[in-house]
C-alpha cells in the first residue's frame, strides 16, 4: 500500500521554514487570490495558478500566501488575480496568462 512520503521529511521542512521565519522581520505576507469559478477555470485559471506556484518553488518565495476564490463577477476578464501587499490596497489584474507570471 503506497502511502504518503515520509512524514519525517515534513517535520524537517517545518523546522527549516520556522528558522527562515525567525530570520525575517515580521513584515507581513503578500496575498495572491486567483478567481476559480467555472468561467475562470475554463479561461485557464488553473494554469495561471500553476505558474504562480511554480514561481514560488523556483524562486523560493516563502512570504506569499496563495488563495483561491469563486467567481469575482467579471467573466469576460478571466483569469483574474488579486494581489494584496501588506498594508496596501488590493490590486486586480485581468486576463492573466502563465506567460505574464513567468516574465515578471
Amino acid at each position: 500500500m503506497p502511502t504518503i512520503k515520509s512524514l519525517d521529511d515534513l517535520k524537517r521542512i517545518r523546522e527549516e521554514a520556522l528558522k527562515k521565519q525567525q530570520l525575517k522581520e515580521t513584515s507581513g505576507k503578500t496575498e495572491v487570490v486567483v478567481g476559480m469559478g467555472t468561467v475562470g477555470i475554463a479561461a485557464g485559471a488553473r494554469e495561471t495558478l500553476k505558474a504562480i506556484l511554480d514561481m514560488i518553488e523556483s524562486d523560493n518565495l516563502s512570504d506569499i500566501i496563495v488563495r483561491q476564490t469563486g467567481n469575482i463577477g467579471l467573466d469576460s476578464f478571466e483569469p483574474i488575480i488579486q494581489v494584496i501587499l501588506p498594508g496596501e490596497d488590493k490590486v486586480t489584474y485581468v486576463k492573466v496568462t502563465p506567460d505574464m507570471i513567468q516574465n515578471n
Partner: protein
Amino acid sequence: MRELALHILDIAENSISANADKIRIVVEEDIPKDVLRIVIEDNGKGMDQATLEKVIDPFVTSRTTRKVGLGIPFFKSAAEACEGTFNIHSQVEVGTKVEASFKYSHIDRMPLGNIVETMLTLIIGSPEVNWLFEYQNGKERFIFDDEPIKQILGDIPLSDPMVLKFIRTTLEEGIRNVQKEYQTENLFVPTRVNL
C-alpha cells in the same frame, strides 16, 4: 473544459461554496471493465429536491437565484457524451455527492488531464478544507489525506515553497506507484487540444 481534472476542480469549487470542511475526490480507472469513475463528495450545506433539479438543468437557473452555474450541466453532458452516467445526491445539512462514470475507451471521453495540479490548486487555495484524494488503477489504491500534513506544519502556510514541493511529489509518486499495473495516460503533461 479540456480535461476531466478541470471539471473536478469546478465541481469541488461548488463544495467549497457550500461551506464544506471535508471534501473527498475519488478517481477510479477500471480498464478491464472499461470504466472511468469520478466521485466528489462533501459535507457542505446540501440542497433540497427543488434546488437539485435546478442545478442540473442549465436553462432553469436564473441569475438572481444562482448558486451553481453551468458547472454541473457541463460535467453531466461530458459523461453522457461517452455512454457514461451522472448522478447527484444531496441532503440538506448533510452534504452532496456527485458521481460520474465514463466509458474509458470512448472516443469522446476527455482525457483525465493534470489531476495533480487540480488537487494542488484545491489544497493550497482552500487550506481550511480537509482534502481527501483517492486514485485507483487496477487493484491498487492511492489514498491522500492532507490532515496529517497540516497537523505537522502547524502555522507554516501550505504555499511555502518546500511544502509545495512536498505535496506535489507525494501526489505524483502516489499516482505513479498505483499506475504500475495498467499504463494509462500520462497525468503530468498538460493536454493541449486545438479546437
